[in-house]
């Protein structure tokens, strides 16, 4: 009948179970850890439950629905699956393995979502952001600024490299869309360029040794991945990142205006 499908055993069993359990419950003694957990949930020794369920699988009776749930706090099917899992044997081993895999998938997905949409650890390599960031420095980055489009000029960001999508670059934002940037701040005759719509201009702090927007042009905003907020390694140099170096202040006029 319908109820049998729901509980995984004939509904008649439920009434018999209740009748059986109403008298002579055994207190929880010293049990194995798994059994103790089950005992705390249902108030009975695991052995009692096992033998009772086995004994009453064949009994006939009438509907009692809610009684079983009130008594154990859950459906009889949960009870049975718990028993399957906590008792020994190959079937239990398979159940336990499935449970472990299930938890691994679940926590793996939570980890993915956190690293993808909240915050991330990054290990840098390369000289293009010295002295702010050196090789083997570990940074904490957050994704919210990029997602909410609150990235400002002067922020250090991680982006996908426009010339190789499989690697990431760490640079400072020197200009947003619509800004005018200077391509060669040190020279006498300066060249300027507008940052097009939907793009940003990235420059590495180590301006003499950095391949950045001065080489490959403005970077599409959608390639930005996260904004660096904190350096956690090496401990001697950790904390918030420094501001942009002096020469970079000339890359963008508004950087000077905001006093960064």
């Amino acid at each position, binding site marked *: 009948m319908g109820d049998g499908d729901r509980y995984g055993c004939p509904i008649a069993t439920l009434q018999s179970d209740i009748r059986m359990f109403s008298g002579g419950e055994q207190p929880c003694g010293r049990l194995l850890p798994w059994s103790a957990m089950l005992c705390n949930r249902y108030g009975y020794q695991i052995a009692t439950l096992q033998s009772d369920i086995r004994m009453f699988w064949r009994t006939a009776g009438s509907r009692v629905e809610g009684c079983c749930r009130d008594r154990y706090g859950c459906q009889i099917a949960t009870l049975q699956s718990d028993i399957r899992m906590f008792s020994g044997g190959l079937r239990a081993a398979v159940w336990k393995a499935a449970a472990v895999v299930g938890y691994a998938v*679940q926590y*793996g997905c939570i980890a993915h*979502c956190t690293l993808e949409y909240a915050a991330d650890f990054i290990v840098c390599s390369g000289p293009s952001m010295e002295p702010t960031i050196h090789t083997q420095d570990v940074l904490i980055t957050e994704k919210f600024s990029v997602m909410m489009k609150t990235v400002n000029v002067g922020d250090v960001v991680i982006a996908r490299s*426009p*010339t190789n999508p499989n690697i990431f670059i760490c640079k400072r934002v020197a200009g947003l869309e619509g800004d005018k940037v200077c391509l060669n701040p040190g020279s006498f005759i300066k060249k300027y360029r507008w940052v097009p*719509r*939907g793009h940003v201009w990235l420059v590495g702090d180590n301006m003499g040794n950095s391949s950045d927007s001065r080489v490959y042009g403005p970077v*599409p905003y959608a*390639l930005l991945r996260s904004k660096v907020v904190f350096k956690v390694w090496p401990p001697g140099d950790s904390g918030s990142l420094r501001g942009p170096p002096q020469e970079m202040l000339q890359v963008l006029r508004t950087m000077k205006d905001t006093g960064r």
Partner: protein
Amino acid sequence: MQAARRYFKSFASGFVVAVPVTVTFLDYVGYVARVEGASMQPFLNPEDRSFNDVVLLNRWSVRNFKVNRGDVVSLASPRDPEQRIIKRVIGLEGDTVKHTFQMPGTRTYKNRYVRVPSGHCWVEGDNFGHSLDSNFFGPVSVGLVHARASHILWPPQRWQRIEPSLPTDRGPLDQETIDHLEEQGAVTIPKT
């Protein structure tokens, strides 16, 4: 009251499991999207239909950013990072493509032939003249490619697997032609 509390508890625990798993699935495996616009006509959203095509977007196949010529891909627009556009890949890095001038005020290269820089690709909509694509904004970085359209799922009459195919008149040029053009200085190599 007890039942309500238990219901909300199981709902919350289900929610905590379901949301990250679903989001991870959408990020790694793929999702379904409706195609808007006419830039890929007649292949997608053909004119004789009143409703839009629904395509299956495969994220797994672009996890390493390996796209092929002729693939229909969904990418973030270089002009508007929040907008996703769906186009066909015509050329990959290193290819030389013919730049078809379509609209006034497009990004004008000195020459009609463009060498696609490394890490970039050339995308075009099938609907010549009605598509905002590489002919307008130049080669796009492959890092912008989000997914590959693998199937048309709806309407049922149009259910099909999307095979990579280049239109007959579009595609990268062969080496002989390229050498000839390079001799004449007719190929633009964008600064990258």
